[in-house]
Structure formats: structure tokens, C-alpha cells
């Protein structure tokens, strides 16, 4: 099978690249090994200092609500973090004291919502808290009515971020129906808004004519004289995927875009050069909670985001997303890195 571009990785970076290329009339395929880090998405895009019009356009066309304002957001354990661009599910407040009294509501029997930690964090921010639990009931109307009935002078309600796997209608309904400010706080993974966003982006990509190969894995590639001719996948075996150019957005260690061995860190598909210290003791910080150096390891690239094999650029291969680690600090980390590097790759590909 032949395409203009074959993308390895169906996460945020791969989908943004695929969607952008399809919109420009290029034929693409995305090979996705299982699901991806979008399923753990917190709902805010770090390292995106402004609301890029390109991103907003894609998300709007895919039916995903995003909003922008500089401020702080509530995290699952009751802490606050700076944020600018967020999914509609996540509120951004000008300051941590977003209400005077809050009612934190959980569902009985659900253990992944950390009400005690949330209350501690909110009290620290100067918000008086009360905890309540309701039974799991079917129907969003019943839930809204149950929560509304519990209100006793609170001007905010904190609910687990578990509503709306297919679309955000339930999220919007709760905000309308409950007579207080409704704030959603993250739970234990997976992330419902993240899953929804991934599904909407994937559906949008397919609606643009993209070929999404779910549950397949790129296992090898044919590279000659610095040019990739085709990639091999586990499911299609002898049927190679050929293209003019290739994008590698296979993620970091979690998605096996990078693999660590006892002595080296490798990129398994192409054997690309990876930037990491030779001395293993510099890979990690013995303090568990510290910022771990290995999280910054990534594939080396030139300015056009071409990676290298033994120091030589691969001319029709581009890398995007967390496989870059911190080798390109200008793109930031996390969702910001995925989006900004994907756009940069698309620009490189489309540039005549």
C-alpha cells in the first residue's frame, strides 16, 4: 500500500500531523500500537503559551471544546498548577481561591476520586469544604438533582471528571443544571476527557480520509542511503507500507518509542541516534519524586526535525511528540511538545 505519508503513532502528535496533512490533500496512514497517553491526559496543554489558531481550528472541526485564559487549574490531589489552554472540562481560575465554600461530591463505592486530598488543598487556598457522597444512579438528570439537593450555601461544587465518554453534553448539562459553580477534578487514570478527545480526533482524521491502523505495530523499516522507502508492520507482515515521507511519533518509554537496556537507550524501529549520557548513574535521580533525567532523553534531530542514524540525517523521516524528550526545548513538554512539534513537522513536509 502506498501513501504520501505514513505516521507511526496514533497519539496527539500523530493525529495532529495526520489531520493537518489530510487537510492539505495528502494521503496518510497512521499505525497505532494500542491506545496512547491521551488516555491519561490531564485536560490542559502545557507549554502552549498562546492559543494557537491552528490547534483551535482542528479541535473545533473535530467537535472538541477548548478555551484559553491564563491562570491556575485544580489538580486531582488538591494542588493547583498554572494553565493557559484547556479542554472545556477543565476550569482555569484567575487565582486559587475560586470560591468561598465548596461541596465536594463523590460517588459511593468509587475509590479513584481523592476527596480528602482535594479538601486539604482547597482549605489551604482559603475555600471552606464539605464532603458528600451520592449513590451511582443512572441518568445525568438524577445526578444533577441529587447534587443540587445537597447544596447548603456553597458557591462551588467539585465533581469527579468522569462524565461524557462520547461527547461533552453531560459536562455542559451539569454546569447548567446545578445552581453553583461546577468544577471537575481529575480521578485515577484513565482520563475520561482524554479518551473522548482521542476518539474525536481519530474520528475526524478518518472522516478526512485517513487510514487508521489500530492495534498494529511498526516493527521495521527499509532505509537506503538516508531515505526511508517503506515500513513493516506486525499485522501486515509482507505487505509493506510505502510512502514519500514518514513521521515517527511513537512516544516515549511508556509507548515503547524509546527502550532502555542496561547499557543504552535505543529507538527500536529505525535505530535512530538518541541523546542520553553514557554513564548510567546520570540517567536517574535516586530520589523517587525528583525530576528524573531519563524523562528528558530523546531522539536527536536537525532543525527540520529529521532524525539521524549514525550522525547522518534521514531525509524523508520526521519525528514529533514525546520521543523528542527534551532535545528540542523550544517545543516544551507533554501535550505542548506533541502539538508544536507535529505542526513543525507538517510545515517541513509541506514546504516545497
Amino acid at each position, binding site marked *: *500500500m502506498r501513501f504520501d505519508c505514513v505516521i507511526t503513532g496514533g497519539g496527539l502528535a500523530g493525529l495532529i500531523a495526520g489531520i493537518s496533512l489530510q487537510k492539505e490533500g495528502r494521503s496518510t496512514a497512521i499505525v497505532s500500537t*494500542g491506545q496512547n497517553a491521551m*488516555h491519561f491526559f490531564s485536560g490542559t496543554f502545557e507549554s502552549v503559551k498562546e492559543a494557537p489558531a491552528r490547534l483551535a481550528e482542528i479541535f473545533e472541526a473535530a467537535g472538541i471544546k477548548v478555551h484559553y485564559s491564563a491562570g491556575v487549574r485544580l489538580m486531582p490531589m488538591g494542588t493547583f498548577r498554572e494553565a493557559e489552554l484547556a479542554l472545556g472540562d477543565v476550569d482555569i481560575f484567575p487565582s486559587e481561591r475560586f470560591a468561598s465554600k465548596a461541596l465536594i461530591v463523590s460517588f459511593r463505592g468509587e475509590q479513584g476520586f481523592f476527596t480528602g486530598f482535594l479538601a486539604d488543598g482547597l482549605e489551604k487556598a482559603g475555600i471552606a469544604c464539605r464532603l458528600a457522597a451520592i449513590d451511582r444512579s443512572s441518568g445525568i438528570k438524577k445526578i444533577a438533582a441529587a447534587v443540587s439537593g445537597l447544596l447548603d450555601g456553597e458557591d462551588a461544587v467539585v465533581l469527579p471528571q468522569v462524565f461524557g465518554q462520547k461527547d461533552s453534553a453531560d459536562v455542559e448539562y451539569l454546569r447548567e443544571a446545578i445552581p453553583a459553580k461546577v468544577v471537575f477534578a481529575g480521578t485515577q*487514570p*484513565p482520563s475520561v476527557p482524554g479518551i473522548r478527545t482521542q476518539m474525536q480526533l481519530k474520528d475526524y482524521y478518518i472522516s478526512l480520509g485517513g487510514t487508521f491502523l*489500530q*492495534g498494529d505495530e511498526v516493527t521495521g523499516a527499509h532505509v537506503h542511503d538516508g531515505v526511508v522507502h517503506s515500513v513493516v508492520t506486525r499485522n501486515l507482515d509482507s505487505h509493506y507500507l510505502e510512502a514519500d515521507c514518514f513521521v515517527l511519533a511513537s512516544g516515549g518509554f*511508556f509507548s515503547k518509542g524509546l527502550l532502555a537496556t542496561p547499557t543504552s537507550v535505543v529507538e527500536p524501529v529505525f535505530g535512530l541516534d538518541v541523546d542520553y549520557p553514557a554513564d548510567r548513574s546520570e540517567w536517574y535521580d535516586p530520589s523517587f519524586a525528583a525530576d528524573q533525567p531519563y524523562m528528558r532523553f530523546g531522539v536527536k534531530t536537525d532543525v527540520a526535525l529529521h532524525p539521524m542514524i549514525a550522525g547522518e540525517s534521514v531525509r524523508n523521516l520526521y519525528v514529533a511528540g514525546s520521543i523528542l524528550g527534551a532535545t528540542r526545548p523550544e517545543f516544551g513538554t507533554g501535550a505542548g511538545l506533541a502539538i508544536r512539534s507535529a505542526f513543525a513537522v507538517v510545515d517541513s513536509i509541506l514546504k516545497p
Partner: protein
Amino acid sequence: MSYQEKTISNHNFEECTKCTICTLYCPVMKVNPLYPGPKQAGPDGERLRLKNPWFFNYALKYCMNCKRCEVSCPSGVGVADLIQSARIKYDKSAPKLRDRMLASTDFMGKLARPVAPLVNFGTSLGITKTALDWTLGIDHRRSFPKYSGRSFESWLKKHASKQAAFPEQVAYFHGCYVNYNNPQLGKDLVKVLNALGIGVQLLDGEKCCGIAMITNGMSAQATKHAKHNVAVLGKAVDAGLKVVATSSTCAFTMRDEYRSLLGVDNSAVRDSILMATRYIYEKLENGAKLRFKPDFHLKAAYHTPCHMEKMGWGVFTERLLRMIPGLELTVLDSACCGIAGTYGFKKENYASSQAIGEELFKHIREADPEVVACDCETCKWQIEMSTGYTVMNPISILAEAIED
């Protein structure tokens, strides 16, 4: 005893990071609270079962073996393989008469064929359905597949010399469904392949692929079938032939389940077993031509069966269908139809089975096609019964679209 006996799994269970993604994509978990879900039934449960078989949970029988957990797993864990292997290893209860009957598609077909009109009439009667429900636990709301009076094998044997005259040859694993229920699908495949200059051969005595035996607690019989089939497939492969199938589950079982669930070495034949849609698509991509009817028109919606999704080959069927001039194609969102072979026939699973399929049925009604295209016969039974839409194998659609 080495520690590795207890700690190394063939199904990658030590790779599970407990991320819970699989539980989101399990069709059963959405509708059946008795099922603990792929993570608990699979890698979580395996850890305990390795410690002590006492931890085996009979609720594992609710797993449909659709493999959607494996397709979604970011870490390459054989989640459904772990569940099915545990059932094979620890569930020592003898299968019920009903399960034996449902699983023995080959044997039942042989019994029914000579008296097909009688059987078809009988199984369409309300009284028979009630009796089967009461006595065996086969749900009375199910409709049964019809049997054909003449087997596909006997038809193709009659045409063997004509087929042998084609310059290029391929072997066909027709499966029980084509042989006993729908020989026309086999004839359609022969028509399309002949139009490409390819003759069709039978294998030297194929047996049922055995998937229904695997899922109904008859792994010993399934293993016998697997060894037999690997041997006859091997003869064809040694003769330089590819083997094509028109049923995604038969192809998937022989390629993957033989090795991973039954421990039967199929490495010599695995890569030669192809879905007919992939085989034909590759021929056309490499320049072979089919003469299509100029006035052909059909509005179709393609449903990717779970095992086609697992093999990752839906893309071949989709692209092949798109090559047909006059075919207006909608690709339905990939979702399980709920039947899972014999699963949905069982009284205790009927309600879950229909609830699982509802999402797909809704998409089909919205698309409102003239036919639903699908590579799996049990999906066909489920969709036809539940929506009233006609389901055709993509090969039959292709056969209709080309000149006679």
C-alpha cells in the same frame, strides 16, 4: 522447579502496567456486571492463578474472546489469550451437551445436510425453539442458520479438473459455514478468482478450525483439529500454494489461536493463510484486472468483525470494496455485534449479546444501506436477525459486481 515456570508468561502478562485502558474497550463489561473485565480476568487474575489455581474465577466464561482488549493495549499484553488460556488450563468441568452441540459445527453440518429442508423447517418453528430453550438452554429468540442440501466440497470436487486448468492456483479453506450453510459464497470466490486467472483447490481434507471448541471447553478436540489442519495446510504450502479463507474467524484461529491457545506449532503455514480480500486486493494492486459491470450500483456499509480488527486486515477489505465502481461505501465505526460465535446462542448470554450489539445496530440503521458487508458469518446471523438488513460477504459483493 525453576522460578521462570511461574513468572514467565507466553502472553506477556508481566508487561501489564495496570493502566486500565483495556477495560474501556471491553464490550462485555459495559453490559454485564458479573464479568470482572479484561484487566482483572486477564493479567491481574493470572498473577493470582499462578500462585494458586484456587483463584480461577468461573466468571471468565463471560469473555467473548473478541480481542478488543488486545487491540487497545498499549503494552502488547495478550489479555484475551490470558483469559482463554486460563479457561483451558483451570476449568475442568465437562462441557454441557448444548455447548458440545454448538461447538461441533462440522459434525452438526454433516448430520443436517442430507435432511436439510427438514432441519431448516424444524428450526424455524416456534415450538422447536421453545423446546431447545427449555431442554438445552439455547435462547428461543435466536434464528438459526439454514443448512444447504449440497456441500461446497462436493460441488468443487465436480469442477476440480476445470479448476486445475488455470495457470495459477490457490487453496481455499472454506470452513463449515460455506460447506454446509452457504456454498454460494464459495462459488462466488471461485468466480472472482477464476476471473483473475486463478484456479481454486480444496485442501486435502480440512476440518473445522475449532474456535467454537476452544471457547466451549473442548480444547482437546480443538487441538486434534488444529494438528490435522496444520498438516493439510502444510501440504498445500509445500506445493507452493497460498491458502485463502472467506471467514475472518477461521483465518484468525488458524493463524493465531492454534499457537497461542493450543500450543500447536503453525509457523510453517501461518504466513501463507490469508483472507481472500487481502489476497485479491494484493493481486489488483500489483496490476491484475477485473472486468466490472458498467451498470453496477450498490449502497453498502462495511462492518469490521472483531477478529478482522485483531488481524488488522479490515483495511484490505475496505480498499477492495472501494475499487468496485458503483459501490457507495460507508465504513461503520468498529464495534462488536455481540454474537461472538456460539456465545450469543446461549440463553444466559442472549440479553448481553443484544445489548452489546445495539451500538452497531444503531449505526447500521443510520447508514441505511442496501447491504451490510462483513467478513464473518456469525456477525451476519446476528445483524440480519437484529436489524433486518441483509449481510453479504465482501467476496459475494465483488462476484456480483464483475462480468459473468
